[in-house]
């Protein structure tokens, strides 16, 4: 990392996230013009986009090589009042909260109070959603049965393919004009609507060119004033880059990065959808430029690395827009989930790992930034050398990159009818979501609290936390004679809530399709131009809506405990069990110990428990998979939590697996914290008993101490663990290399860390089982690393 990058990195990591009223003020200004009311909604949105890009402050940071900021400066974060307008109370909470704060000064608060709030309050997408969804939806939502992604932020959840590296915006305008010319107003009743969409896209394409030209102007001025000759040359070159891209297709590695970055800033200025935006298979897209220029001598490896590092900093300058309420709970992070993909296979199915893959891994290792996130795709065709390289990054405990199974992802996409080329050119984004890059709108609609459904089933439709009846009557559980009766009641209850969720999804889809088109994003995703249809309205080639199941480990252990202790071994009657739960195990300590220690648990390669996992998986799958969406797509499942397992746990009382009220649920498809006691191979076996191919992504977390991967045999062990899991069609695995801090906690609270394996030379053991002396030694050793 050279001095320039050190400074850029420092600027990015030391700036405090704050709220910038700039965008909201420009938007409000535009919406107040009479002409904003005289045009169609898509055209209005495009003109608003243009207005913002025409008037916003152009920020060029000292020393940077890639330009373009969403706000007036790094970490200054705009809001999107047309979707969700923050109240003064919200601003105060955002400013004061300990975790993930956003500062706002007096001026900002005044802008909100005087201009933004009065104009938007009551007129946002959020207001529309809460007015449109039925009462039962609101009740289930408030009870914490599910969350709703689109109540504060628009859908997006999409990734770019290689199209911008081959075509400039001028080229897209030609495509748009072609479609406009061919509109058949006589035979096609939708032609008029298409005309508005296409016109809007054209305005948006021109707007981003204009934005780049404003940067070019400012760079030229800066170059004139610059006294350092080297920087002067750079600024001139950057000005030339901004004149060329995004208007025309990039000619160089540098232009390619700058083009993507303008597109990124465009997407997150238009509405900043979930997962911001994402270049996807970066090592693939950039490789032709890299190879050509390295060969011709115009680019050196060092220069390429410096450009990539400058590009990396840009992502980190842009925190996710501020979230509040339940949405903050389900996804409480500055990360905006731009997940850069490396490796995998090419469109023809061959090994895609190249020199640039390794160079980008070097960048990831050295930058160690929160954003962008990075992931590695692993196909059976990728060499071990590649796995060893990224494992050396993982072992440093940075939590990145996460590891994905290309071959499973391709199968997942083929199952739902995507073409083999689109599948191979795709990957995973956000946390773990499968998608056809550049061709699909694959939207996370909300997390679904599977254990909460059991809690309600055990109370015959009533939520014990509030005493409200929010479910259906599925029978008095004390009268159930068999475990199957319980399972069938659980399935009925789950179907009931899924129906409510899907009804809501269809209403919300329509609201976005009609009121919040995204013409700029629509240019970027096939086949919106060709169809003359907006991204939010089913314009993409493939349209998927996911409902993300949370708590697979917890629900398994809860059901296993009921099956084992109530129905089979009759250690306790249902009545007694419910009493223990109602009393949060007070005076049931012995019984709780039995539940914790003498019950089959998920994550141990134990068929008794894992069969229940499979049953729950099938119930969840049947309830959702294939149900149509308002955008003309299908609902699918995936299993991931972000931070929602903590929120979902907070709304559930004590449960039969021995979990006390309010504690977090298991996350992703990982076992309940401390429930897995047979090591990583057993966890992987359990996790692979569900059919990952029928999901759109699952998330598995594994913990390791750095010492485990110190030796070659340790690295190879983990490498083969990954290969084996992927042979079993596992979708994703990530390695949480634990810190000394965690070990200290484990020493203090062993009950929460039963599953933590540590390695001391040629010997491994559960950390909590080690003597104090040895624990301290391992803590010291970990600290040294």
């Amino acid at each position, binding site marked *: 990392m050279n001095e320039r990058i050190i400074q850029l990195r420092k600027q990015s990591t030391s700036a405090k996230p704050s709220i910038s009223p700039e965008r909201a003020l420009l938007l409000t200004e535009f919406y107040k013009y009479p002409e904003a009311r005289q045009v169609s909604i898509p055209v209005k949105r495009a003109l608003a986009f243009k207005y913002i890009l025409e008037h916003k402050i152009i920020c060029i940071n000292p020393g940077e090589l890639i330009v373009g900021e969403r706000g007036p400066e790094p970490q200054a974060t705009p809001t999107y009042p047309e979707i969700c307008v923050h109240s003064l109370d919200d601003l105060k909470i955002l400013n004061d909260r300990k975790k993930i704060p956003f500062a706002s000064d007096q001026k900002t608060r005044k802008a909100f109070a005087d201009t933004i709030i009065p104009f938007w309050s009551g007129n946002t997408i959020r207001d529309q959603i809460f007015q449109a969804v039925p009462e039962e939806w609101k009740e289930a939502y408030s009870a914490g049965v599910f969350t709703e992604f689109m109540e504060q932020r628009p859908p997006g959840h999409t990734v770019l393919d290689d199209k911008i590296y081959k075509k400039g915006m001028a080229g897209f305008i030609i495509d748009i004009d072609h479609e406009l010319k061919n509109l058949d107003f006589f035979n096609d009743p939708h032609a008029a609507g298409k005309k508005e969409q296409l016109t809007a896209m054209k305005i948006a394409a021109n707007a981003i060119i204009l934005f780049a030209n404003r940067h070019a102007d400012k760079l030229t001025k800066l170059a004139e004033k610059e006294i350092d000759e080297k920087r002067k040359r750079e600024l001139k070159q950057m000005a030339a880059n901004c004149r060329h891209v995004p208007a025309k297709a990039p000619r160089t590695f540098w232009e390619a990065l700058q083009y993507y970055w303008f597109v990124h800033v465009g997407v997150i200025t238009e509405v900043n959808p979930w997962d911001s935006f994402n270049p996807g298979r970066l090592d693939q897209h950039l490789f032709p430029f890299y190879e050509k220029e390295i060969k011709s001598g115009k680019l050196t490896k060092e220069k390429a690395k410096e450009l990539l590092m400058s590009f990396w900093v840009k992502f980190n300058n842009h925190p996710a827009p501020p979230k509040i309420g339940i949405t903050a709970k389900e996804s409480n992070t500055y990360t905006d989930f731009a997940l850069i993909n490396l490796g995998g296979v090419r469109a023809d199915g061959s090994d895609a790992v190249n020199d640039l893959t390794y160079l980008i891994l070097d960048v990831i290792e050295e930058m160690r930034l929160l954003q962008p996130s990075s992931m590695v795709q692993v196909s059976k065709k990728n060499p071990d050398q590649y796995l060893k390289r990224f494992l050396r990054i993982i072992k440093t405990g940075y939590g990145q990159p996460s590891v994905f199974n290309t071959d499973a992802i391709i199968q997942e996409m083929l199952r739902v009818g995507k073409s083999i080329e689109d599948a191979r050119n795709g990957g995973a984004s956000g946390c773990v979501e499968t998608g056809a890059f550049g061709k699909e709108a694959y939207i996370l609609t909300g997390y679904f609290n599977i254990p909460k459904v059991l809690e309600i089933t055990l109370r015959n439709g009533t939520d014990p936390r509030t005493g409200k009846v929010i479910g259906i009557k599925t029978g008095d559980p004390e009268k159930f004679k068999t475990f199957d009766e319980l399972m069938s009641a659980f399935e009925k209850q789950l179907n009931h809530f899924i129906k409510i969720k899907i009804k809501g999804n269809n209403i919300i889809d329509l609201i976005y399709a009609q009121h919040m088109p995204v013409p700029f994003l629509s240019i970027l995703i096939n086949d919106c131009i060709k169809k003359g249809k907006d991204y939010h309205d089913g314009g993409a080639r493939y349209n998927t809506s996911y409902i993300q199941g949370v708590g697979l480990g917890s629900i398994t252990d809860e059901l296993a405990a009921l099956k084992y202790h109530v129905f089979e071994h009759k250690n306790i009657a249902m009545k007694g069990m419910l009493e223990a739960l109602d009393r949060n195990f007070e005076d049931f300590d012995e019984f709780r110990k039995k539940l914790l220690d003498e019950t089959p648990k998920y994550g141990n*390669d134990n068929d008794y428990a894992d069969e229940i996992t499979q049953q729950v998986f099938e119930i969840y799958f049947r309830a959702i998979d294939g149900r149509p969406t308002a955008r003309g797509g299908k609902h699918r499942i995936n299993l991931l939590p972000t931070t929602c397992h903590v929120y979902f746990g907070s709304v559930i009382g004590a449960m039969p697996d021995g979990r006390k009220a309010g504690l977090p649920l298991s996350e992703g498809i990982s076992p309940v914290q401390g429930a897995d006691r*047979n*090591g*990583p*191979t*057993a966890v*992987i*076996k359990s996790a692979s008993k569900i059919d990952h191919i029928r999901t759109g992504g699952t998330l598995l977390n594994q913990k390791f101490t750095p010492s485990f991967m110190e*030796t070659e*045999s*340790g690295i*190879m*062990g983990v490498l*083969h*663990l990954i*290969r*084996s899991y992927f*042979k*079993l069609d596992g979708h994703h695995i990530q390695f949480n290399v634990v810190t000394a801090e965690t070990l200290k906690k484990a020493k203090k609270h062993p009950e929460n860390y039963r599953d933590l394996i540590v390695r*001391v*030379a*040629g*010997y*491994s053991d559960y950390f909590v089982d*080690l*003597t104090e*002396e*040895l624990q301290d*030694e391992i803590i010291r050793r970990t600290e040294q690393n």
Partner: protein
Amino acid sequence: MSVAGIIFNIQRFSVNDGPGIRTTVFLKGCPLSCWWCHNPEGRAQGIVKINGNTIGQSITPEKLLKILLKDRVFYEESGGGVTFSGGEPLAQPEFLSEILSLCRQAGIHTTVDTTGYADQAIFKDMLPITDLWLYDLKLMDPVQHLKYTEVSNYEILANLEYLMKNQAQVIIRIPLIPGITATQVNIEQLITYLDKFDPKPEVNLLPYHKIAIGKYQKFNITDRMIGVEELSKEETDRYAAQFENSYFMVQIGG
């Protein structure tokens, strides 16, 4: 009729007891009593109770195989398999022979981690059903050997020669115990002794770690290693270099 064995641990995802990902089964009972023993709770034969902890469980070969097969995918992917350690696995020859045969029939790679202290007839029986031997060599001096392990090294050396003569796959494992096995004299004697084999076996050097102290305390066993410090990396590397200079394949740890 199968013979049940007594084991005291099954460790899945072992990566240091032979090639690839392995499941290591620890058979209970050992004729040696090494001062530095890492598994002192596994020394005595049969199931025992120490300080309220039951050590050891009886298991049939069939039942054990079922557990071992659970990780087949990992063995196959990594070129791994199953390792029988202890204790001294050869101290339960009928059981070991049966489980080795069952693994062989299932196509699983087998490794026996042994002190070398057993009747040669047992080695003969195990030879065709064992893919790899992890063979511990500690001290070349017979008197020293007797002192620190409580058995003679005569049989151990004879058995190693038997295995080598019969082209068995053998990796020599040498624990580097400061002041006991990790002495210049002993290392030189080991090199001279091993030098006569053709081909030369691979050598793993296992530096002493104080990891077992806790076990001695927990199980109330007299610890004869109190005050012995761990070997420095430099010393370990120096011994490794000595083997390398005599053209041995050497690995630290194993």
